[in-house]
């Protein structure tokens, strides 16, 4: 790999052993992805504070410096961790103290995470604690090279914002945070950003709402796998919540990190531009039959209509989504045996509190929770057997992670299930 002088200095230890270890990882990783050089970045979204048994043992052995060296730099060295070289944020992690007493989540994990937040905060990590950093101030600019993790955030950054990041991991974001470098391969390069699969939306599918954008994303991910779907045809103009849902779903059913919607996402004004030339002769049709198939796939784990848990806010909800949930819950109360959680970034809960939405949800018996989600923390209210969600991603993952049944539907259907304790959702034409 071709290295600049400052990269060679970092590799050779001029900036200390931790930075040298970070460069070593980047060089090993750069070779693995076939990169010819590194690129400069000033925006890292990674994870350091999420509790795990391996991390707890490392902290016990050698403190947070050791845990960072082993997990975030893949190094066997013993050294102190310097401050982050470039702006770095913590993504979603485990539950915080607001989980105490309402779910079977270990107190030791909450304490370990609080300790981690203090350590990493001192080293310059912004504890955003959300899977949606772009909702709380980390909004990369068009064309900006970044090192981000979290598949739903990566696809949003690449596609909606036109920033450039691969789906990085814990060690590569750790190394990037101490160097401001990441291998210049994959999504960082122009030639790898064109569309590969044409998806044509039938006007009869009515893709103009949160539910349908999620289902279309799930379909597109199944078609494109790790490649780049291009969405054309007849649909309503999506808002940021719908694009957030679409991307999370496409990154779940496939491994999509980048898509284009000509005229809407910034890198492709036209379908030709999206493909960088010739548009494929054959597209994949998304019509009523395909829509129904996606709906049935997302609901195939649902059997019992007795819902004991409703989960909203995956990826973490926007203030507007909290407002919608509050509006649906206004003056109602949850069924005695049912819990409702809506996950938001902690910074946005402040706004939800201030706007009165949290009070409406809490009065009805629901909870506005932050930092994590049931899938990330592998937890739900004790005794949950059947859950309902408006998130295609959570409907996909949670049954496998917690061994529970899932219903997928609209936000309003989910709120109705929380109030009645019964699932009455159905696919409307």
């Amino acid at each position, binding site marked *: 790999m071709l290295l600049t002088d400052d990269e060679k200095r970092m590799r050779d230890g001029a900036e200390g052993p931790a930075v040298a270890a970070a460069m070593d*990882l980047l060089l*090993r*990783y750069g*070779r*693995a*992805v*076939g990169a010819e050089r590194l690129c400069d970045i000033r925006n890292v979204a990674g994870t350091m504070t999420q509790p*795990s048994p*391996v991390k707890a043992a490392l902290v016990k052995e050698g403190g947070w410096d050791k845990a960072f060296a*082993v*997990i975030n730099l*893949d190094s066997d060295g013993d050294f102190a961790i310097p401050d982050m070289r470039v702006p770095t944020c913590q993504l979603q992690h485990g539950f915080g103290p607001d989980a105490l007493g309402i779910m079977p989540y270990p107190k030791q994990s909450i304490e370990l995470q609080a300790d981690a937040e203090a350590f990493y905060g001192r080293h310059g990590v912004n504890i955003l604690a959300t899977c949606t950093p772009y909702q709380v101030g980390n909004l990369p600019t068009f064309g900006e090279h970044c090192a981000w*993790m*979290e*598949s739903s955030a*990566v696809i949003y950054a690449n596609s909606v914002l036109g920033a450039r990041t*691969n*789906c*990085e*991991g*814990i*060690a*590569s974001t750790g190394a990037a945070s101490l160097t401001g470098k990441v291998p210049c*391969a*994959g999504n960082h390069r122009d030639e790898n950003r064109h569309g590969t699969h044409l998806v044509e939306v039938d006007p009869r599918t009515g893709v103009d709402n949160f539910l349908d954008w999620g289902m279309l994303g799930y379909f597109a991910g199944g078609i494109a*796998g*790790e490649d780049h779907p291009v969405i054309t045809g007849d649909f309503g103009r999506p808002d940021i919540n719908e694009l957030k849902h679409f991307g999370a779903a496409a990154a*779940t059913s*496939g*491994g999509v990190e980048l898509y284009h919607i000509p005229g809407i996402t910034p890198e492709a004004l036209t379908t030709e531009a999206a493909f960088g030339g010739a548009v494929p002769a054959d597209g994949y049709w998304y019509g009523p039959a395909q829509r129904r198939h996606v709906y049935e796939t997302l609901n195939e784990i649902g059997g019992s209509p007795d819902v004991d848990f409703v989960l909203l806010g995956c990826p973490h909800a926007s203030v507007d989504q909290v407002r919608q949930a509050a509006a649906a819950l206004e003056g109602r109360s949850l069924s005695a045996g049912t819990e409702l959680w809506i996950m938001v970034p902690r910074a946005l809960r402040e706004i939800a509190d201030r706007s009165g939405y949290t009070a409406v949800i809490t009065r009805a018996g629901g909870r506005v929770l932050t930092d994590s989600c049931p*899938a990330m923390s592998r937890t739900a209210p004790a005794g949950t057997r059947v859950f309902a969600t408006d998130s295609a991603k959570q409907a996909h*993952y949670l049954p*496998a*992670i917690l061994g529970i049944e899932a219903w997928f539907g609209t936000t309003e259907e989910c709120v109705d299930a929380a109030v009645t304790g019964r699932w009455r959702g159905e696919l409307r034409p």
Partner: protein
Amino acid sequence: MSTPSSPPPSPAALPWLAARNKLTLRGRIVVPGIAVGEAMVSPEPISGWGGIDPAKGTIIERRHALYGACFTGKILVFPSAKGSSGWAGFFQATRLQGTAPLGMVIARVSAKSALGAVVTRVPTLTDLDDDPCLVIATGDYVRIDADSGYLEVYKA
């Protein structure tokens, strides 16, 4: 199958090798090193987070073709990585907990799986001149030479 570029086996090994159906594939080096062992071939992509249990070295995704199978000490052959960006962290945890595979052969590498192989620290090849998930079967004996960039397969 391309064979001409592979170095000849040692004369002493010839009778043993001749008795087997040997294939040689060339590939690109992801992580250098040499690993020899039995192949475990996944017909479908593998998830890290939610897909494997690093404490046991097993595939835990319920609908996966290899559900319940253990890759510890095997050469893990698979088409690609899928799912969460926690992929590499989960495979790194297999190394830290002693349940890692011996080596990896990845048909199509991505940032996720490339980093995963790096932090698992096992010899790994990709971009082979034939589909490894089709030409290798579980139980075949495999030698990854990720110093020179070729893979020898001895059909079981």
